[in-house]
C-alpha cells in the first residue's frame, strides 16, 4: 500500500522499453543458454526413456515420497522461516542482553554444510549418541525402551537439522530489509496506536517480502535438493527417489523424468511468486531514512528475546562446531594438516574465488540490462538464471557432462588437426567443469539478491541521471553498481560460502587427484569414518566464517550512517 503510492514517481521509466546494444543481447542470450544447457541435457536424457517405470512409481513410490517432500519443505519453511524472521526482527527493533553479540553470531550457521550437520546430530542425539549415553549413565537406565527420547533419524529430526543451518538465508535477507526500512513509516503507525507486534505484522513484514521470498526460496531449494542429510536421516524425498531409480534400477532416463517433474514444480513456484509480486513495487524514495529506533526490552521479555536468538546459534553453529573441534582434538587430527591438505585447501579457495567473480560479473550484466530495458530477452535470461539453483547438484553435473565433453572433443579435434598431438580433455580434465557448474548453480543467488536490491531503488534516480544527460554506461557504472554495492557484497559472500560447501557437482566433475575440502569430508564419511574428516569440516566452517563475518560487518556498518537523521 505504501509502496504503491511511491510508484507514481518512477513509473514511466520502468515501462518504456529501451533498446540495448547487440553485444549485450548476445551476451545475455549466451548466459541464458549456458544455464539452460544442463536443463536441456536433462530433458534429452528423460526423452530417451519410455514411460515404463511410471506405473511402478505411481503405485509404490511417488505418493509416499511426495508427502515426505511436502512435509519436509513445509517444516523447513515454518521452522527456518520463523527462526530467521523472528531473530532478525528482535535484533533490529529491540535492545536486550547479548543483542550486540548475537547480531554477529546469528548468520554463522551459514558456514556449516547441511550433510555435516546431519552426521553430527546423529553422533550427538542418536540412541547411543553422547546425550543419550550420558543420560543413561546418570539415570541408571539400561535400555532404550525404559525412557522416551525424540528420534533424530526421522522427518522432524531432518527438519530440525536443515532449519538449524538454513535459517540464516532468511535471517540475512530479513535483517537487511528491516534495517533499511524507513522509521517514519513505523512511527506513523505507532502514533496511530499500533502495537509492536502489529507493526511487525502489517508494515515491516510485508515490506520485507521480496527479500524474504529470495531467502526462503534459497533455503527450500537447498532442502529439496539435499540428498546426504535426508538419506542418512531416513527421509525418503523425491530427490532420494531420483537416486534410487537411477542407481538401483539402472534407469538414468527414469531418474531424469522424475527430476523433470520436480523441476516443473519448482518453476511453477517461482512463477507464482513472481505473479504475486507483479504489480507491487517496493521502491523507496532515494533520500536516506532514519532506521527504526530500537526499543529496550526489560525483565522477562528481555531474557526471552535473548533466549530466542541464542537458540538458533546454539543449534546451527555452536553444537556442530563444538563437536568438530572435540573430534579434531580427541582424534589428534591436527596432524592431518600437511602439504596435501594445504593443496586441497588452496584448490577449494581458488575454485570458489574464480566462480564467485564470474557469477558476480554475469549477474551485474543480467540485472543491469533488465533494469535498463525490460524486454523478453532480459526477462527470459533472468528467469533462466533462476533455474540453475533449482537443479540438484548431481543432476546439474550429469546434465553438464555431455556438453562439456562435447566442447572438449571439439577443441581436441581442432588441436589435433593443427598440431598432430592428442590434447585430452580440456574442461573436464582440469577444473573448468566445476567452475561452470558453480556459476550455473549459484547465478540465481546473485541475480536474486541484486534484483531485490535494485527493486528498492526508486527509478526516479535513474530518471534524474538521464535528464542530466548520462549515457547508458554511466547509468550502470555511476548509478546502478554503486547502488547495488551492498547487495553485491552480500551476494559475493553467500556465493563464496556456497561454493566452498558444494559437494555433489564437485564430486562428479573434478579431475584426477583433485580434492576440495568438501570432497575430503565426503571421502572420510564414505569410509564410515566421518569423525576423521572433522578437521576438514572444521576448516570449511572456518573459511566460511571469514566471508560471513565480512557480511555482518558490512551489514552492520550501514545503519550507523543512516541512523544520523538526514531527512
Amino acid at each position: 500500500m505504501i509502496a504503491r503510492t511511491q510508484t507514481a514517481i518512477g513509473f514511466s521509466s520502468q515501462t518504456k522499453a529501451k533498446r540495448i546494444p547487440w553485444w549485450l543481447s548476445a551476451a545475455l542470450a549466451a548466459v541464458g543458454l549456458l544455464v539452460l544447457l544442463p536443463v536441456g541435457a536433462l530433458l534429452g536424457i528423460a526423452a530417451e526413456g519410455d514411460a515404463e517405470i511410471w506405473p511402478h512409481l505411481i503405485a509404490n513410490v511417488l505418493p509416499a515420497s511426495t508427502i515426505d517432500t511436502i512435509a519436509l519443505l513445509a517444516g523447513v519453511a515454518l521452522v527456518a522461516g520463523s527462526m530467521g524472521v523472528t531473530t532478525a526482527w528482535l535484533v533490529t527493533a529491540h535492545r536486550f542482553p547479548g543483542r550486540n553479540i548475537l547480531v554477529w553470531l546469528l548468520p554463522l550457521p551459514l558456514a556449516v554444510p547441511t550433510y555435516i550437520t546431519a552426521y553430527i546430530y546423529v553422533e550427538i542425539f542418536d540412541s547411543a549418541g553422547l546425550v543419550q549415553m550420558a543420560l543413561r549413565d546418570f539415570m541408571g537406565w539400561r535400555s532404550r525402551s525404559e525412557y522416551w527420547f525424540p528420534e533424530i533419524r526421522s522427518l522432524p529430526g531432518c527438519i530440525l537439522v536443515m532449519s538449524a543451518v538454513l535459517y540464516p538465508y532468511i535471517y540475512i535477507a530479513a535483517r537487511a530489509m528491516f534495517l533499511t526500512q524507513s522509521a517514519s513509516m513505523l512511527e506513523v503507525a505507532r502514533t496511530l496506536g499500533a502495537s509492536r507486534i502489529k507493526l511487525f505484522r502489517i508494515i515491516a513484514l510485508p515490506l520485507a517480502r521480496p527479500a524474504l521470498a529470495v531467502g526462503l526460496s534459497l533455503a527450500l531449494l537447498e532442502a529439496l535438493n539435499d540428498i546426504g542429510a535426508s538419506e542418512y536421516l531416513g527421509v525418503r524425498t523425491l530427490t532420494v527417489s531420483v537416486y534410487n531409480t537411477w542407481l538401483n534400477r539402472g534407469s538414468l532416463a527414469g531418474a531424469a523424468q522424475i527430476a523433470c517433474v520436480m523441476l516443473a514444480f519448482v518453476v511453477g513456484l517461482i512463477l507464482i511468486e513472481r505473479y504475486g509480486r507483479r504489480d507491487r513495487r517496493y521502491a523507496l524514495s532515494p533520500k536516506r531514512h532514519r532506521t527504526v529506533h530500537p526499543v529496550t526490552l526489560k525483565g522477562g521479555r528481555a531474557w526471552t528475546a535473548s533466549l530466542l536468538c541464542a537458540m538458533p546459534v546454539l543449534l546451527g553453529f555452536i553444537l556442530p562446531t563444538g563437536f568438530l573441534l572435540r573430534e579434531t582434538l580427541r582424534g589428534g587430527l591436527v596432524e592431518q594438516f600437511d602439504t596435501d591438505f594445504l593443496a586441497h585447501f588452496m584448490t577449494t579457495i581458488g575454485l570458489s574465488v574464480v566462480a564467485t567473480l564470474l557469477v558476480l560479473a554475469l549477474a551485474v550484466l543480467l540485472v543491469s540490462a533488465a533494469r535498463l530495458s525490460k524486454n523478453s530477452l532480459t526477462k527470459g535470461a533472468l528467469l533462466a538464471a533462476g533455474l540453475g539453483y533449482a537443479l540438484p547438484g548431481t543432476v546439474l553435473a550429469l546434465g553438464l557432462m555431455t556438453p562439456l565433453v562435447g566442447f572438449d572433443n571439439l577443441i581436441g579435434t581442432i588441436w589435433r588437426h593443427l598440431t598432430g598431438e592428442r590434447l585430452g580433455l580440456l574442461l573436464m580434465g582440469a577444473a573448468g567443469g566445476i567452475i561452470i557448474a558453480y556459476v550455473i548453480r549459484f547465478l540465481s543467488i546473485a541475480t536474486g539478491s541484486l534484483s531485490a536490491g535494485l527493486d528498492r531503488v526508486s527509478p526516479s534516480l535513474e530518471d534524474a541521471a538521464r535528464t542530466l544527460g548520462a549515457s547508458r554506461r554511466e547509468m550502470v557504472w555511476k548509478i546502478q553498481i554503486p547502488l547495488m554495492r551492498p547487495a553485491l557484497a552480500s551476494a559475493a559472500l553467500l556465493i563464496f560460502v556456497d561454493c566452498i560447501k558444494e559437494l555433489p557437482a564437485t564430486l562428479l566433475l573434478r579431475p584426477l587427484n583433485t580434492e576440495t575440502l568438501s570432497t575430503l569430508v565426503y571421502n572420510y564419511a564414505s569410509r564410515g569414518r566421518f569423525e576423521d574428516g572433522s578437521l576438514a569440516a572444521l576448516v570449511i566452517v572456518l573459511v566460511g566464517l571469514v566471508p560471513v563475518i565480512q557480511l555482518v560487518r558490512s551489514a552492520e556498518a550501514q545503519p550507523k550512517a543512516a541512523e544520523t537523521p538526514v531527512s
Partner: protein
Amino acid sequence: MANLSFARGLLCGAAALGALAGSSLSASAEEVLNIYTTREPGLIKPVLDEFTKETGIKVNTIFINNGLEERIRTEGANSPADVIITVDIGRLAAAKDYGVTQAVKSEALEKVIPAAYRDPEGHWFGIALRGRVVYASKERVKQDKISYEELADPKWKGKVCIRSGQHLYNISLIAAMIAHKGEAKAEEWLKGVKANLAKKPSGGDREQAKDILAGVCDIAVGNTYYVSLMLNGKDEEQKKWGQAINVILPTFEGGGTHVNVSGLALAKNAPNKANAMKFMEYMVSDASQQIHAELNSEYPIKAGIKIHPTIASFGELKADNVQIAKIAELRKKASELVDKVGFDQ
C-alpha cells in the same frame, strides 16, 4: 576498506588456481595409471603406494561414488580412465552394461580368482569378498545360528534393525533371496522383515550396531568388515558398539552366507593399457592381497592368504551358491520390491 581486501583475497586465490591448473597439465613424460574408483582411495592407498614403489608407475586416482559409470561413458574415447575399482556386483555388472569396460584375458587373474567371482568374458574381476551377516546383541541373543529366512520370523517382532532397503548392500541381499525363493516368496519375506523392524530404516551399518548397544533392537543386518573397523579403530565409542554384538554368519535355507565382491575392470578406452594390466595382476599378488586383507578386513579372494583375526573369529565362511551374476540381474526386481512393500516408509 573491508570489501577491497576481500577482493584482493579473491585475486590471490585465482592466481593459486591458475598455478594449479598449469601443474596438472604439465606432467606427461612419466609412466602413469589413472584409476577411477567408487571406493575411497584412502582405503587402498598402501596398496597403491606399494605398486608405485615396485613398478615406478605413478598412480592418479579419482573417487566418485554415484555417477562414475556415466562419467566414463560421457568422456568417451578421450577418457583418461585406465582401471575401474568398485564395490558390489551391482556396480561391476553396471559398468559392463554401460559399455565402459573391455574384456581382459589374463592367466594370472584367472588362476587366482574362482570363476564364480569374475565375469566369464573378463569384463570384471573380484579381488576380495565381504559377507552380509547378522549382528546380534551379546546380552540379549543366545542363539549362535540363524538363517536369512528367520529374519522374517514373528519371534523377532520389534527387534530388528537395518539400513535403507534401497542401499546397494541390501538390494543385493534381497536379490539373492529372490534367486533362492522366487519373487512371491521373497516379497512375503521382505514384508515379514519389515514387520519385525524396531525403527524406520536409516543410518549406515555401524548405526545398527549402535542401536543394538542402546537396546533399540536385538539383531541387525550389516557387513562383516565394519565389525573389524569398529573393534580395531582408534575410537573408544565405536569399540563399545562393536563389543556389544556377536556376529552370526547366517545362511539361506539350502544355501550359504550372502557374499559380495569388490573388484576391478579395465576401462574401455584405457590410454595406459599396459600399466593397467600390470596393476590388475598386481592386485592378486600375495603381497597386495595380504595388505588388502589386513587393511580392509575383507576376505581375500586368493586361497592361502591370512584372514584378518577379527573376521576369522566369526567362524568359517560358507559362501552362498547363487551365481553372483544372477544377483546382478535381479537387482532391479529387488529395488522394486523394496518400494512395493514400503520397506523404507
